[in-house]
């Protein structure tokens, strides 16, 4: 089965999950092919999924190398209910003024992100959902 290559809208049930302040699990592969998974903050807005990271971590390097990622959303009340969203990386956007990570931090913690550490650089990923699969959703 070939993966779609056009952006899809998230179905209503998945969209409702995406509104909750839950983490998404980002699945990528490292250079040696091993699966890497990280729980991260996210936002679904304007039809895209937005993530933000410190540039020093491994998972954003994987996302950039693979030009995409697999995201998992699990219903916090019903663990058997989950959605898997295959995404393509549209754009990597620098976040020098940390507005974007502040925006995400407010979604989860109701206040701005911590002060950046010396030398810390942040980037935002704009991800395009291409395919949504799942269970009981």
């Amino acid at each position, binding site marked *: 089965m070939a993966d779609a290559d056009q952006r899809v809208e998230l179905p209503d049930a998945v969209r409702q999950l995406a509104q909750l302040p839950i983490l998404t699990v980002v*699945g990528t592969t490292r250079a040696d*092919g091993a699966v890497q*998974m990280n729980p991260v903050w996210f936002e679904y807005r304007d039809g895209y999924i937005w993530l933000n990271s410190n540039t020093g971590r491994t998972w954003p390097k994987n996302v950039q190398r693979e030009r995409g990622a697999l995201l998992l959303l699990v219903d916090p009340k019903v663990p*058997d209910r989950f959605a898997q969203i295959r995404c393509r990386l549209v754009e990597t956007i620098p976040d020098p003024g940390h507005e974007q990570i502040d925006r995400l931090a407010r979604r989860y913690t109701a206040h701005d992100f911590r002060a950046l550490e010396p030398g810390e650089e942040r980037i935002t990923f704009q991800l395009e959902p291409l395919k949504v699969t799942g269970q009981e959703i």
Partner: protein
Amino acid sequence: MAVDLSPKMEAFTQEVFPAIIGTNRKDGSVEMVPVWFEQKDGSFWINGGTNRGWFKHLQRDPRITLLLLDPKDMFRWAQVEGKMVNWAEDPGGDHINQLSHRYLKHDYQNPRTGRIKVQIEPTRITGAIDGRR
């Protein structure tokens, strides 16, 4: 080479929440799915039907990663990289029934036939529980 669990990880893995497992599809892309698990004597055990995608992936590439994430506190998580070292039939469904008791505190309600149990040996542990990124 297998790694030992720290005391903190030993305690964390006894808490009751599903693990998210990540395996490699044929084209190298990732698949993730939440599953029941248990950790015993340093190995992780999961259970499923032989027709599950993740089991097919593991037979081709035994590498598997488990993400353990406390559903009540998103800052408590661990990533366990490992590999399938063994699998066996689960005749009579004894193992899935044991997992059912761990998660639901009662007998497994679904058919107990055609299931397998998979042993995973951890090779690398990172995340917030041990404070290693």
